[in-house]
């Protein structure tokens, strides 16, 4: 008897988790990722509008992925150098963030929330832990998220040759913005 109760409980538990999973998955296909480097000599900005992201509200798990070659610059030569010399996009085609939103439960109802997201960012093949505040707006089944954080090029093994050290900032401002829609399967 006990066996049956345990078994059915486990089954119910397992089934309900999957069900919740399916309802709470959100996907963004055209997320904007940009970085900004500012020095007295030069401002460099790269923007990608092809970021991909998925969000699971039940667990707070969030995944962000952007193709390095999708970043656009004002000067084409910057884009070439970005991919060839700094990001080495041949070897490391994607930059990726895997993390968790803290207290995802409060996102169940409409409203604007300040949340913390913690996770690992992999850029240029180097993975590092980050924690950043995210502004999340939930409105009738769609979610908008915006986040700003800083990344040091040296933290990800990106070398800046001394000759251009005055043109490229040590710390870059990263901006991420995504609009999620519920994924129906």
């Amino acid at each position, binding site marked *: 008897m006990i066996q049956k109760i*345990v078994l059915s409980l486990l089954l119910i538990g397992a089934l309900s988790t999957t069900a919740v999973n399916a309802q709470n998955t959100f996907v963004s296909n055209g997320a904007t990722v940009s970085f900004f480097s500012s020095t007295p000599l030069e401002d460099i900005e790269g923007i990608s509008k*092809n970021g991909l992201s*998925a969000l699971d509200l039940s667990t707070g798990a969030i*995944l962000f992925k952007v193709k390095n070659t999708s970043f656009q610059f*004002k*000067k*084409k*030569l910057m884009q070439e150098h970005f991919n060839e*010399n700094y990001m080495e996009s041949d070897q490391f085609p994607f930059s990726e963030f895997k993390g968790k939103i803290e207290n995802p439960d409060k996102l169940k109802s409409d409203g604007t929330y300040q949340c913390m997201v913690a996770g690992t960012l992999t850029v240029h093949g180097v993975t590092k832990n980050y924690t950043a505040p995210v502004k999340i707006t939930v409105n009738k089944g769609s979610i908008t998220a915006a986040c700003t954080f800083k990344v040091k090029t040296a933290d990800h093994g990106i070398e800046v*040759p001394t000759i251009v050290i005055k043109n490229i900032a040590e710390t870059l401002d990263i901006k991420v913005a995504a609009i999620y829609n519920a994924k129906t399967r």
Partner: protein
Amino acid sequence: MKNITFICTCFLLMIPFSVLFAQNDLEQLIQDDSTAREKVSATFKSTHLINAQSTETIHKKELEFRVDHRFGDIAGGTGGIGNFFGLDQSTDIRIGFDYGVSDKLNIGIARAKGATAATQLYEANFKYRFLEQTTDNAIPLSLAFFGSGTISGVKASDDPAASTSYKNFNDRITYVSQLVMARKFSPIFSFELIPTYVHRNYTIFGDQNGIFAVGAGGRLKISKRMAIVADYFLPFRDKTKKDYVENVNQQKFYDALGVGLEIETGGHVFHLNFTNATAIQESQFISETTSSWGKGQYRWGFSISRRFSFNKEKAGGY
């Protein structure tokens, strides 16, 4: 009881699987399904290898300022410590400006000293990159056409057999047409072939005006910012005319071969190269290279190029 333990174990075993499954789920959701073909970038790092053109063009609204320099013979009869391994001499100097009309079309002007009898050169050129290799190999090659016309400003020679005994303005002009065919085989290796036609309106007595040649060049990356580059040109000359001119000049014709190191430092590309060709202009080094690697008649050369972008940006050069 035994059964409960079994079921519980099973469940515990399943937890990591389901967690894994959930993560995979998220990853599956955002799989990059964009099979969008991308153009292969940076087949070469500069518009030139050493002597040869590459398929690269500068981008729209960019201006490239380029200085090429060839020193004197390092070794051989005129080389050695006497002229400090060629550094006391310069066989050719070329200063040029190229402008990107579009990402594919460049136009340029240049002034060169000229290394043959024809000196004081004024060149106008264009390069049109009409096909670009793609990452999915739908287009396996990059193709560019380079064309130039050069006018020699040297005083016409009184010797009627000389290559500079120009009778009218037209005689002073030479033309170069090149089809540059390149492929980036891997992130570190690119190779190109360059069928070339050089036409000189006026030559030394007995030489041919038009010469077909084929060039080959390659680039091998040895570090993130350094690469070894090499190029070679094989001209197809009329045997009897070649022998005749060689006999008159008391000088043999050789094929131009260059090897070099390409160092990229932010906004500009620095070339450190060695070649037997004394001239920088295509119309001269392909048709009139009379110096040989075998005799120590190779020289140090360098080129410095700097790009300026006028693409609605306040700051100057990058």
